[in-house]
């Protein structure tokens, strides 16, 4: 009943919703867990270790940075470093040595995030920056580390074969393609190389050789664009970065995020939609005969679409800006996949688009309520 001597003063509003940054970050961690289960199932306990090491390194690096900069160290436990660490690990092949995620996660946090001022201030997605750093610095480790799915459980008698399956044999083994350690996008890229060889053979007058090469490319593509491949891609039984393979479990995480109102659908839908559209138009050997399903299910676009294109800090806040961001990232992804030097362009497309975010925000500011265009 006692009346306080003085009431506390505060600015309006005096109430606040119960959504917090920490809750959002831990929702993202929860949403990432189903895919982690798939990674562990297909690539073995080592995949789990990589994720744990990466996340732990990220938190530790964040803690040390904050300590060094004399900022409140409680930020290290707000969940954002864990998300960065997990996402970096999800973008690594499962065959990498265990020190690699340590280097990558430390780089992601120190250079990608804290150097810019910490949470909310980084310009590009730190996890993707970490990955780009590793690809540039340790290209062999980052591309030779592909493992065939479930190889760890069958040791040397992997019934699905190993990642050493030759491309030539894949045409004869339409069921086996997705089990190979090489990623499906790698195989696809090689078919385009075969097409190019066929073209050069034809120009040299060797029509027979050109025919064989062209035939082989088409039959491999036919094997890739098949229902059995789709099924494997959907459940994640394929080579690839450890966290990107199981499309269905990534979607489970995505649905959870939508239900928790953390994921706003404009970004992932415009991104994946652009990838699908572009794949259909330009993805094949001619026009309008590409396979959008294959392109959406393979590589990292679902992981990227749900967890990285939609990273809050580094993407636009305006509704129109989000659609533009998704469009741009989708286009760059497909240009890299189709004509670039890498089989997958997801991470670079997002990094490049991250740089345009402030500009997009500025030019897509929504029309204010009651605002009348006065420039006609």
């Amino acid at each position, binding site marked *: *009943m*006692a009346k306080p001597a003085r009431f506390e003063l505060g*600015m309006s509003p005096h109430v606040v919703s119960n959504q917090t*940054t920490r809750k959002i970050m831990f929702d993202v961690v929860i949403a990432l867990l189903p895919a982690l289960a798939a990674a562990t199932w297909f690539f073995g306990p080592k995949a789990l270790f990589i994720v744990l090491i990466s996340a732990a390194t990220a938190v530790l690096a964040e803690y040390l940075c904050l300590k060094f900069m004399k900022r409140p160290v409680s930020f290290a436990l707000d969940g954002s470093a864990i998300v960065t660490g997990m996402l970096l690990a999800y973008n690594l092949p499962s065959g990498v040595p265990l020190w690699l995620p340590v280097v990558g996660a430390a780089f992601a946090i120190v250079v990608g995030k804290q150097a810019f001022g910490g949470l909310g201030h980084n310009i590009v997605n730190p996890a993707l920056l970490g990955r780009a750093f590793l690809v540039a610095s340790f290209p062999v480790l980052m591309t030779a580390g592909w493992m065939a799915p479930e190889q760890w459980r069958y040791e040397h008698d992997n019934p699905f074969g190993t990642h050493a399956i030759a491309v030539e044999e894949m045409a004869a083994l339409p069921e086996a393609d997705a089990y190979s350690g090489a990623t499906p996008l790698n195989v696809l890229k090689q078919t385009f190389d075969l097409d190019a060889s066929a073209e050069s053979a034809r120009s040299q007058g060797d029509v027979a050789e050109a025919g064989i090469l062209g035939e082989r490319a088409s039959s491999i593509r036919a094997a890739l664009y098949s229902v059995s491949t789709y099924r494997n891609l959907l459940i994640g039984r394929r080579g690839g970065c450890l966290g990107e393979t199981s499309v269905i479990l990534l979607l489970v995480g995505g649905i959870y995020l939508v239900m928790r109102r953390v994921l706003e659908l404009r970004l992932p839908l415009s991104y994946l939609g652009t990838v699908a559209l572009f794949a259909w138009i330009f993805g094949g050997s001619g026009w309008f005969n590409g396979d959008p399903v294959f392109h959406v299910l393979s590589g990292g676009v679902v992981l990227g679409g749900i967890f990285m294109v939609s990273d809050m800090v580094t993407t636009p806040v305006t509704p129109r800006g989000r659609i533009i961001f998704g469009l741009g990232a989708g286009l760059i992804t497909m240009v890299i996949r189709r004509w670039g030097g890498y089989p997958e362009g997801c991470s670079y497309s997002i990094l490049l688009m991250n740089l345009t975010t402030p500009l997009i925000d500025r030019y897509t500011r929504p029309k204010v309520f009651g605002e009348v265009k006065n420039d006609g």
Partner: protein
Amino acid sequence: MAKVRTFRGGTHPPGHKNLSSGQPIRRIPAPELVIVPLCQHLGAPSKPVVSRGDRILRGQEIGAQAGFISLPTHSPVNGTVKSIENVPMPHRRTGPAVLIETESEDGGQVFEPWDDFRAHSREELIERVKLAGVCGMGGASFPTYVKLSPPPGKCIDTLILNGVECEPYLTADHRLMLENPDDVILGMEMLAYALGVSDYMIGIEVNKPDAIKLMEAKGCRVLPLMVSYPQGAEKQLIDAAVGREVPAGGLPMDIGVVVQNVGTAAAVTKAVRDGEPSLRRIITVTGGGVVSPGNYDACTGTLFSRLIEESGGYSDEVVRLISGGPMMGISLYTDEVPVTKGTSGVLALTGAEARDVEEGPCIRCGKCVDACPLRLTPNLIALAAENQRWGMAEEYGALNCMACGTCSYVCPSGRYLVHYIKKAQDAIRANRGKEA
């Protein structure tokens, strides 16, 4: 019931209205000392026309209107002027007030009561509303007569009565509509007559089904509205009601609409039918910080502490005292402030109810952008303001902000977005003053 309408954006803070929505309005007699502020309305304070020791009557003018956007102030009691001094006001600063020692509280009828307002001209009615000191009872306290006198050339075709009461906790308007619907409806007819409009309606959120039913039963055109904050903001209410957007930087009268609060309508009825100036109002006293929340009919100049006493005093957990609702209200350090015509609620919040989060960095989640009813980008304006880039803040539309608090409410980082935007508004306006 008609189609339930709403506006775009907004948020859904928990209502907490059941704390007091079932409590009938209780009339509190005037306290022994009333402290009547001379600036209960928006605009210039009224000039005191009484001096110390004067015996005055209830309803007597104690402050004269001092300009166009200003109103006269009246004494709510019969008594003696004790002093005229600056006192703490519910908007946290101090302001001049007339302190009157109460003798009694009868009388108060200072104008001729009109049995049939239609027997008088529109101008006479508007003059009466002005002389009675009626201002908007919804919170902004804008002089009502000004809203009834559109400049020549503006054609008003619609009157919307605001019974939305979208601020959480508050139930004063709700109780008023339930207990005194006839005054509200008569006041609405008077306002419509003054404006010369035949199209008038009352907007009520669907969380007050009893009020909607009652008003419809009384033959009133009711506009049921979705429960969403800030449904009762003038521009949002108009958008939901008639689908017209008030131009940015403009007024509702620019698109032919006038909005008045239900409490204002009841005050107009009192002024016109009973010949009594605006002396009392309905106030919700609520929150987990008071023992038994309730709705009161108190005279202006009653101290908040008296209202709290009436509600059983403070509970042990009280930490914050607010004049108004939790979204836009002003937090006070003391309860020794007087009720004004604009006091819709006195809110005592406990530590568990009041905001208790530390501000973190913007994570650019965009929730404020999606929720802003004016389609601003609050996070970007706030960022510009923090870096004192006032030009950029203005480019992002900072001046349009009405400080409804929706952005700060939804922000997961607990950022004081409204505060930054207000700061930007002040700076932009100050810079303009310098240039001019």
